[in-house]
C-alpha cells in the first residue's frame, strides 16, 4: 500500500526536513486512508488548519500543545478522497508574517539552496518549502494578504489563492475572517488544479461559503467568454486579453530583473496571439493602508479567544495563584507570553483601529477603500462580478475589458533570513521601504477583492545591459481573474507553465 510506504518513510522525511524546518509534526500513524481519486497523493497541511490526529499550533506558543477535537472540512475532504495527510507545516504565527520567521517552531529555510539560508516566504512558508523540497505532492496553505503566493514565488512552486468563499474555512484558525482563504501549493498547475477541484465545494459549516449555483454561474461566465473569443487551436491565444496593471510596475523598479522577466512572458503571450493591454487600478495606492487596518482589526478580534481559559496556554500571574480576582491578570499574562512580537503588534494596531475614537477614521474608511478596490477590478474585467450588488441591476454589456491580469508575484527573490536577537525573535532588518511597499501592492488588492490569484514560477530573464544581474533564485508570475474565474486563471497559468517547459 502506498500509505504504508509513506508511513515507514516518516523517518526519511524527518531527516530531509532537518535543514529546512518545513514540518512541525509528521503523521506516523498507520491509519489506512480510504480509496479514492487522490490515492497516492501526499499532502502537507499548514499548521493553522485543524487536524484531530495531529497537533494544531498555528506556530504559536499560546496553542503549543493544542489538539483540535475535529478535522477542518478541507482535511476531511482530502482524506475521504484517498489523499494522505503526511504532516503539519510551519508558518508565521497565526498567519501573520511574510517570511515565515515569526514562528514558535523557528524559521523555515528555503530549500532552493539551504546553504544560503534564505527565507521561504510567509506565512505559508512550510507548505511551499515542503513542496519545493519534494517532501509531498501538494500542500494546503492559507492566504490573507499574499501568504500563499509569496512563498510560492520564493520557493519556485505553484500557489493558488482561490476566490474567497469557494473553499471552506471551517477548521481554519482565523486571522482575518473576511480575507482568510485556503489554497493549494504544488510543483505544477495540474496538481494544484486536481487538489483544488476536490476542495472547491460548498460547506454548510462555513457561513461565507458560496452556493454551488453561484460558483457554477461565475465559472461558466468566465469560461464562455474566454472560449467564445478563441479559435479551436489551443496553441493560438488569439482572443485572450491580458491586463497589465500600471500601478504594479513603478518606474523605480524598471531595471529590476524580475520585472523584465515578466515583460518577457508578456511579449511571448502576445506573440502567441494574446492581447496585452495596460490597465489602471487607481485605488491601489490606498489598498495597503486599508488592508493593514482591516486585517489587524479582524485579527485583534479573532485572536481575543486565546485567553488561557478554555484551552491552550495559561500563564498565572506570579505569586497570585490563589487569588480569584486575578482572572484579568491571567489574560494579560497568558496573552503577553503566548503571543509573539509580530502578533502582539498587530493586535495592538487592530485594537486601536476598532476603538470608539478611531473606528470611523480607520475601520470604516478602510471598508470604503476596500469597496473602491473591488470597483477598480470590476471596471477592468470583461465579465462582471457576480457577487457585486450592482450586478442585480442590468448593466450594459461591456465591449472592452480583460480576462485576466498578469503581474509579478514578488518584487524580489527570497531574502536572507534575519539573524535572531537575544529573545529568539528576528531583528527587524533594515530593508528597502519602496520594495516593501510594492511587495504588498502586488498581493494585497486581490485579497481585499476576494479574487482568484495564482503564482506560477518563471525563469529569470536573459540578462541584458539594461537590467541588473539576477541571482538565479526562483521568481513567480501572478495571474489574477474576476471572482469565480479560478478555472480560467488556472488555464492561463498552465499556458505560462508550458511556455516555460518549452524553454520559453
Amino acid at each position, binding site marked *: 500500500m502506498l500509505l504504508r510506504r509513506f508511513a515507514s518513510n516518516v523517518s526519511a522525511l524527518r531527516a530531509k526536513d532537518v535543514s529546512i524546518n518545513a514540518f512541525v509534526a509528521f503523521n506516523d500513524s498507520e491509519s489506512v486512508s480510504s480509496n479514492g481519486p487522490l490515492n497516492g497523493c501526499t499532502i502537507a497541511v499548514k499548521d493553522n488548519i485543524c487536524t484531530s490526529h495531529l497537533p494544531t499550533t498555528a506556530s504559536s506558543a499560546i496553542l503549543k500543545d493544542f489538539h483540535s477535537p475535529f478535522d477542518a472540512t478541507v482535511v476531511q475532504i482530502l482524506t475521504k478522497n484517498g489523499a494522505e495527510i503526511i504532516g503539519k507545516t510551519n508558518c508565521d504565527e497565526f498567519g501573520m508574517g511574510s517570511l515565515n520567521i515569526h514562528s514558535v517552531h523557528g524559521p523555515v529555510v528555503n530549500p532552493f539552496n539551504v546553504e544560503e539560508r534564505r527565507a521561504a516566504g510567509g506565512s505559508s512558508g512550510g507548505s511551499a518549502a515542503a513542496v519545493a523540497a519534494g517532501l509531498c505532492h501538494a500542500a494546503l496553505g492559507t492566504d490573507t494578504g499574499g501568504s500563499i503566493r509569496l512563498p510560492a514565488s520564493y520557493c519556485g512552486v505553484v500557489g493558488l489563492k482561490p476566490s474567497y468563499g469557494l473553499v471552506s474555512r471551517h477548521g481554519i484558525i482565523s486571522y482575518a475572517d*473576511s480575507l482568510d482563504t485556503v489554497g493549494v501549493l504544488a510543483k505544477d498547475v495540474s496538481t494544484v488544479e486536481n487538489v483544488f477541484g476536490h476542495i472547491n465545494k460548498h460547506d454548510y459549516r462555513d457561513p461565507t461559503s458560496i452556493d454551488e449555483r453561484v460558483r457554477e454561474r461565475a465559472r461558466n461566465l468566465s469560461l464562455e467568454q474566454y472560449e467564445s473569443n478563441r479559435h479551436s487551436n489551443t496553441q493560438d491565444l488569439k482572443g485572450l486579453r491580458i491586463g497589465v496593471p500600471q500601478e504594479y510596475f513603478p518606474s523605480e523598479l524598471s531595471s529590476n530583473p524580475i520585472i523584465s522577466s515578466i515583460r518577457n512572458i508578456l511579449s511571448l503571450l502576445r506573440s502567441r496571439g494574446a492581447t496585452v493591454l495596460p490597465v489602471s487600478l487607481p485605488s491601489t495606492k490606498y489598498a495597503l493602508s486599508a488592508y493593514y487596518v482591516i486585517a489587524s482589526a479582524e485579527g485583534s478580534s479573532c485572536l481575543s*479567544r486565546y485567553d488561557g481559559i478554555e484551552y491552550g496556554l495559561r500563564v498565572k500571574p506570579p505569586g497570585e495563584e490563589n487569588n480569584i480576582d486575578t482572572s484579568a491578570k491571567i489574560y494579560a499574562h497568558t496573552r503577553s507570553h503566548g503571543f509573539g512580537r509580530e502578533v502582539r503588534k498587530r493586535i495592538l494596531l487592530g485594537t486601536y483601529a476598532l476603538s*470608539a475614537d478611531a473606528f470611523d477614521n480607520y475601520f470604516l474608511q478602510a471598508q470604503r477603500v476596500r469597496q473602491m478596490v473591488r470597483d477598480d477590478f470590476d471596471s477592468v474585467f470583461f465579465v462582471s462580478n457576480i457577487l457585486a450588488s450592482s450586478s442585480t441591476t442590468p448593466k450594459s454589456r461591456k465591449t472592452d475589458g480583460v480576462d485576466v491580469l498578469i503581474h509579478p508575484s514578488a518584487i524580489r527573490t527570497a531574502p536572507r533570513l534575519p539573524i535572531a536577537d537575544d529573545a529568539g525573535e528576528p531583528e527587524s532588518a533594515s530593508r528597502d521601504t519602496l520594495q516593501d511597499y510594492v511587495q504588498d501592492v502586488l498581493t494585497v488588492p486581490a485579497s481585499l477583492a476576494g479574487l482568484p490569484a495564482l503564482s506560477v514560477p518563471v525563469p529569470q530573464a536573459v540578462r541584458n545591459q539594461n537590467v541588473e544581474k539576477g541571482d538565479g533564485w526562483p521568481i513567480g508570475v501572478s495571474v489574477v481573474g474576476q471572482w469565480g474565474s479560478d478555472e480560467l486563471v488556472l488555464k492561463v497559468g498552465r499556458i505560462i507553465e508550458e511556455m516555460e517547459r518549452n524553454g520559453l
Partner: protein
Amino acid sequence: MSRLLVDGWQVVIGIETHVQLRSKQKLFSKAPTSLLSHSPNTRFHAFDAAFPGTLPRLNRKCLDLALRAALALGCTVNERSSFDRKHYFYSDQPAGYQITQHYSPFAVRGLFTPTKLGNSIRIKQIQLEQDTAKSITNPSKKSALIDLNRAGTGLLEIVTEPDLRTPEQAAEYVRSLQELLRAVGVSDGNMEMGSLRCDVNVSINRPGEPHGTRCEVKNLNSVKFIVAAIEYEISRQRRILENNSSAEVLQETRRFDHDVWKTYKMRSKEDAPDYRYMPDPNLGTLVFSQEHVDSVRRGMPSLPASTRSRLLQTYSSKGVTERDIEVLMNLDANREIPYDGAESSILGAVAYFEQLCSRNRDPKITQNVLGQLSALGKPFSSELISVDRMGEFIDLVVAKRMTRPSAKLLLKQMLSRPSNAPVNHLAAEMDLLDTDPPHHKTMSANDDLVRDICLRAIDALPSEIAAIRGGNQNVMNKVVGWIMRETRGKVDPNSAKTILNQLLR
C-alpha cells in the same frame, strides 16, 4: 399627568429586557439549549467554547422567534440588518466577544400597549444576540468555575424609549411583555430561571425641564426588584438634587443588592468599557424578505390583547366578567411553552375553557369551575383532567346531581388521582351523588332523608343542641357541618338548617 409626579419630580424610566429564545438549539451552533437543571458543561459544542476554526451558523428557528417578537411588539422589521462583535474579556465570554446587533438591529420603532396601562410604550429596537456562559465564583474555595451550557443561547434585547413614569408602570410593562412573549411562544419569560432579565434606566427632572441624567441598574431578575430598584433610585437621585441645588446626578451603571434592597455603583461613565464594536465578517447581511415576514405573521398565535377582547365579546353576554377573563388568562400563563414556536399539543386554559363552552355549557359556571381548580392548590394543567371528563363533571354540577361541597370533593379526587373512569361512576363510587336527580325527587322523600339525619345529629350532639336551644344560633353551623360530613355533603345545608329549626322548635 400630575398624578404621576413624585413631590414635584417627574420620573423617566426606560427598560432594556434580555429574553432567552425558546429554541431547541443555540443561536449559532447546533448544541442543545439548557435548563438550570442540566449538569454544567454538558450542553455545548466546540463553537460555544470558542475553539479555533469554528464558525457561526445561524439557526433559522431563532430568527422566526425573533420575528414573532418584533411583530407582536408592532416593530418595523428591517429587510437588511447585520451582526456585530462586542469585545470584552470576561470568563463568561469564551470568544472574547459577543455577537450582537449594535449598528443595525433587525427590528425598530415598535409600539406596545400593556393591558393595564392607559398609554403605549414605544419600543426603540430589538436586537438578536448571544447569551453568555455562566461563571460561578466561590470565594471560600477561591475558585471560579465556568458553565458553558448557556453560552450562545439566542437572546433578544428589547429596548424601550424612556416612556415609563412610575415603578408600577415599569412593573406592568415587564409583566405584560412577559405575557406577550409567552403567548407567541418566543420565550418562557421565566425571571426566576433567568430567561428574562431587565436593565432599568432611571432619571428624574422637574416638569417642563429636560430629562435628568440617567442611571442604569443592571440585571434585575424579578418584578419586585425592578420596583424596589426604581424606588431606591428615585429617592437617591432626589436626595442628591434636593440637598444642593447645584449638585448633579452622575451617569452611572449600578447594581441592585437584594439583601439590603439598595442599588450600588458598579462603574461611572468614565469607566465605561470601549467594546470596539466590529461588523462580524462571517455572518454578513441578515435578510428578511417581505414574504417570509408575512408567513411568520400568518403563523402567529393570537396576542393576549386580542384574546382578551375576543373572550369578552363572546362570553360577556353570558355573565362572564373582565375579572373572570383575567383569571382564565392567568391560568393560561402557566402553560409550558413549546420549543421553536411549535404548536403546543397541550391545551392552555383559554382553549380548554372554549372547548368546554363549545358544547353548550354555561361559560360562567365553566369559568367558575376552572377558577376553583387553582384554589385547590395545583397549577392549572389541561393534562390532569381531559376536556371530556371536565365536561361530564360540569354537567353533573349543572344538573344539580351534587351539592357544592360534594363537587369540590370530587374535583379534588379527579385532580389527585387522574383516571379515565367516567366521572359519574367515580362520583357514585365515592357516594357523592344525590340518590335521585332533583326533578324526580319528591320534596317529602328528600325531606324525610334530611329529617333522619337531623334526628341523628340531635342524638349525637347533645351539648350543641342544648346551646342552640339556649339561644346560641351560631352553634347551628357546627351541627350542619356534622351533617355535611356524615352525608358527604349530599344534603343541602339550607334545608338541613330549616328542618333542624323545625325539629328544635
